[in-house]
């Protein structure tokens, strides 16, 4: 699992250099949804995913991405729900 942890890459989403260790845990402990797009040239990333994650986890990581405005509307709804629950 941690054999590639020190490999370095420029993360386009964050805008700085980081190590693979971050990419494989970015999504609440699961890999970042861009992990294959970023690493496909450098590591046997497909094999890595297959060996270390369940199929359901892989489906969850790569679930279809929504357009930006749609995801903002979803985050607003989620935030409203959370604030209503907060005392």
């Amino acid at each position: 699992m941690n054999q590639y942890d020190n490999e370095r890459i420029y993360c386009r989403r964050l805008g700085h250099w980081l190590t693979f260790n971050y990419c494989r845990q970015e999504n609440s402990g699961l890999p970042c949804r861009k992990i294959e797009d970023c690493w496909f040239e450098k590591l046997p990333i497909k094999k890595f995913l297959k060996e270390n994650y369940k199929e359901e986890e892989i489906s969850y990581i790569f679930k279809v991405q929504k357009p930006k405005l749609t995801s903002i509307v979803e985050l607003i709804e989620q935030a409203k729900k959370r604030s209503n629950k907060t005392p």
Partner: protein
Amino acid sequence: MRIKTVLSESEIPKQWYNLAADLPSPLQPPLGPDGNPISPEMLAPVFPMNLIEQEVSQERWIDIPEGILNILYKWRPTPLHRAKALEDYLGTPARIYYKNEGVSPPGSHKPNTAVAQAWYNKEFGIKKLTTETGAGQWGSALAFACSIVGLGCKVYMVRISFDQKPYRKTMMQTWGANCVASPSEETKAGRDILEKMPDTPGSLGIAISEAIEEAVSDTKGETRYSLGSVLNHVLLHQTIIGLEAKKQLEKAGENKVDIVIGCAGGGSNFAGTAFPFVNDKIHGEEIEIIPVEPTSCPTMTRAPFAYDHGDTAKMTPLLPMHSLGHDFIPPPIHAGGLRYHGMAPLVSQGIVEGLLTPRALHQLECYEAAITFARTEGIICAPETSHAIAVTIQEAKKAKEEGKEKVILFNMSGHGLMDLTGYQSYLAGKLQDYPLPEEEMQKSLKGIEGLPKPKEAKTGKW
């Protein structure tokens, strides 16, 4: 020979250009989670109504308020440079020009929209803006803008970036912003994550949730959220770059541009530079317009690997196009703007139409270009910007081979003085490229044989 063409403040463009008015195939309206079009009211908890109006506007020209211009004058109009030293070094007959957006106080194009957004929020009666940031390019631009406009600013900076990029955090704090590491104890979203994973390095996803929660849960309704790229109104505010460039090129004696180049992350500096020229192209001019991205993690030149995976495949046509060369454009995956996730829908549609021809480059070529640029023009550019410079050099060399006097314009979107790690690795010989082996590419191509071609919403004119 004139190296810099400057405009006086009185010559600054007084309107932004909205490409949505001229796109030959209109954008699909964005849909909400329930599948119905998103209404302005649904966005009202996070954006002020004046910006929501701009987001959906079909007006071609939108007046830039005097109040915004008065702030932009602090560094705008930005100079248009003739890259004479680079031309001489390359021995090219091409004339190369670049807009220098690195002269803004935070050092990039980002304050063009940060200032506009802060100003419109203030007009609407808002007191504080929230946002998320990684390395802090956007966070520092918003912190600067809020400081000048007179708004509070809260930046949720992804924990790993907060720890690794202390100088940008200090910039934000210097401009008076409250910059916290995300996940934080300040929101329910942050606390929930910290409870489960106290040592988490954070993510942009969590930081966005926190920034939106803070805006939504302000019971006084005085807090809103701000985004630095992708959305239509952000691209609109950036068009001042291309509009200034047009005036400056004319002043420099150029009446035709052949090639316009910009790097594209979310698409804002590219769109800002290129859209006024896309308008000319729509009206018959012959211009090659090139958004550039890295081969690693591309959004325009190759469909994401996510489309290889189960669930996704059921919902959208499967198009696993892996690294098919720099001028390959995959067919659209989804008519509703899903095609290039993370890329501005207006840029995506421009690619579908064939008005824009995206290109992907390996990092080594980009750093080489950045070094050449630094040693000729003197400016150390941002890592993103190096992609635009690398394609400029490719095109200048091509012009030399063809013996053509082409006019090339690119956007120098920012300086790289806060981002020297990549230069350090390059100079130490530690950067490598990993071209995808030919057999891998052939395997990928085989994988898509016989798959249905999705419908394209395009006119087919370009």
